[in-house]
């Protein structure tokens, strides 16, 4: 699991996400500097780093919520760029969970989960709601299916968001700081769901500060700073001292308590 993807840009059949020389600017500020990275089928990659280091920007480039300006990104064998139809195809294979849940407030929990499958595939309402209930069951929230997002706690909303992403049966799941907006007592219920997902073999890319989760679940840790990938090594290596100076400084800051 310690493959270094920086060299040689050939795409394996197993490679679900690959970044090659990706750069991104916001105005004059360069948010991503020459990112080379790949995520293989079944791999769990945790991305960490100080705020403003480009972690979120990078993960958002995967499904093009941010457009990169240089380099190429391949997802599930397709290059993501411009073409709307192709982009929609990619997005249907990539589930995403946001920091602020972003559930649709005007729809019930069930409708939140059934919407995309019904619109994107020719699933009937009954089939879609069966699938939705299955995934809601999996995140242990099926009994709240008829409620509205505003009636749920943050942790519950985030689990619904996970079910919503899963309902499209994606090949990869992206998590963009999924627990950062949660009250402390709700963090674990979300991390538990994510761990379970990982043990079922889901390919995951997770931006998080939860180092306990990283240590337990991740195969690989990517450490970013100032728009660059500074470390890209196995979890064991990362936590047993095989990390560089900056990663060391970062970890010592967040693991103080």
């Amino acid at each position, binding site marked *: 699991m310690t493959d270094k993807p920086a060299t040689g840009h050939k795409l394996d059949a197993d490679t679900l996400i690959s970044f090659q020389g990706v750069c991104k600017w916001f105005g004059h500020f360069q948010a991503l500097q020459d990112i080379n990275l790949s995520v293989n089928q079944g791999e769990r990659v945790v991305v960490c780093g100080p705020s403003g280091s480009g972690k979120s920007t990078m993960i958002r480039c995967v*499904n093009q*919520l941010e457009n990169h300006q240089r380099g190429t990104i391949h997802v599930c064998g397709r290059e993501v760029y411009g073409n*709307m139809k192709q982009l*929609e*195809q*990619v*997005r*249907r294979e*990539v*589930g*995403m969970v*946001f920091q*602020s849940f*972003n*559930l*649709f*407030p*005007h729809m019930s929990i069930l409708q939140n989960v059934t*919407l*995309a499958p019904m*619109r*994107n595939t020719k699933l009937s309402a009954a089939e879609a709601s069966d699938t939705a209930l299955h995934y809601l069951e999996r995140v242990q929230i099926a009994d709240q299916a008829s409620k509205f997002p505003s009636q749920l706690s943050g942790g519950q909303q985030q689990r619904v*968001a996970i079910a*919503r*992403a899963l309902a*499209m049966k994606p090949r990869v799941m992206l998590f963009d700081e999924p627990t950062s907006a949660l009250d402390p007592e709700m963090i674990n219920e979300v991390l538990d769901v994510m761990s379970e997902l990982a043990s079922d073999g889901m390919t995951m890319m997770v931006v998080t500060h939860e180092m306990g989760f990283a240590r337990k679940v991740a195969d690989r840790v990517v450490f970013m700073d100032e728009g660059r990938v500074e470390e890209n090594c196995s979890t064991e290596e990362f936590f047993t001292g095989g990390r560089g100076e900056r990663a060391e400084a970062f970890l010592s800051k967040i693991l103080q308590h």
Partner: protein
Amino acid sequence: MTEPPLQTRRKLTTVDYICFSLVGAIIAYTIHRVSDVLVYNWNWSRVLNFVAYYDEDSAAFVPNLLLHGIATTLRLAFWATIVAATIGLVMGYLRTSKNLAMRMISRCYVELVRNIPPVVFIFIFYFFLSGQLMSVIGLDDLNKNGTFVSSGVFYTLFGDPKLFSNFVAGALCLALFEGAYITEIVRAGIQSIPKGQWEAARATGLSPLNVLRDIIFPQAVRKILPPLAGQFITLIKDSAIVSLISIQELTFLATEVASTTTKVFETWIIVGAMYFILCYSFAALFSHLEKRALRARR
């Protein structure tokens, strides 16, 4: 559990009584001055006859010019609102579009309408455009004796068939005019939807059309219903300006009644009261519906 303290009902205080009596005094003084200076023979019944008169033969009240006028005003407002809402929805979306040409077109429309006095806008539209438009879409040769045209349904919806093309011109004028304001309301509504909603919808692979239809518009519409209702009431009031292009709505007929009866004050006071009752009833209805919707959502 302890009970919350009983809320005492708010009562009028001395300050309130002083305010009321001051306002009353000013009104009384004004009336006194006016009746002193103005030697005027008030005659309300002549004008009231033009609202509705008593028909001896059928022994019933028959609506007269002013009530016909208010019916036309309502019809105008109804159709103009539908057209204006459609224009506003499309243009409002284009205002937020990524495409520069689309943004420029909608921006031009809004700025043109908002920076020309309504009266001038209506003259331009009516004399230069609607004359051409009506013959192009063939409204001038409408068969006045067709089964639908001569039916009661048509009369209820569009009024007198003889004045149909005139009515359509008036409604279109108003719609184009109010559409610009609705455009801005819709734009604000769309822009008030958090970025995360767009992202979450796109991230599940929904097509751009579905993102709008399922996620953005339903939420935006809920937010803009109160200002839209307000705009509807504004539209009723603004409809008075199409009297200038001879649409036979309340204000137009009021000028006729005023000149026939020579009772200018009575006519306009009564017409003002009719507009007030109409608009205030709608305002009361909308605020009632809004409160109910708020309660239902809780």
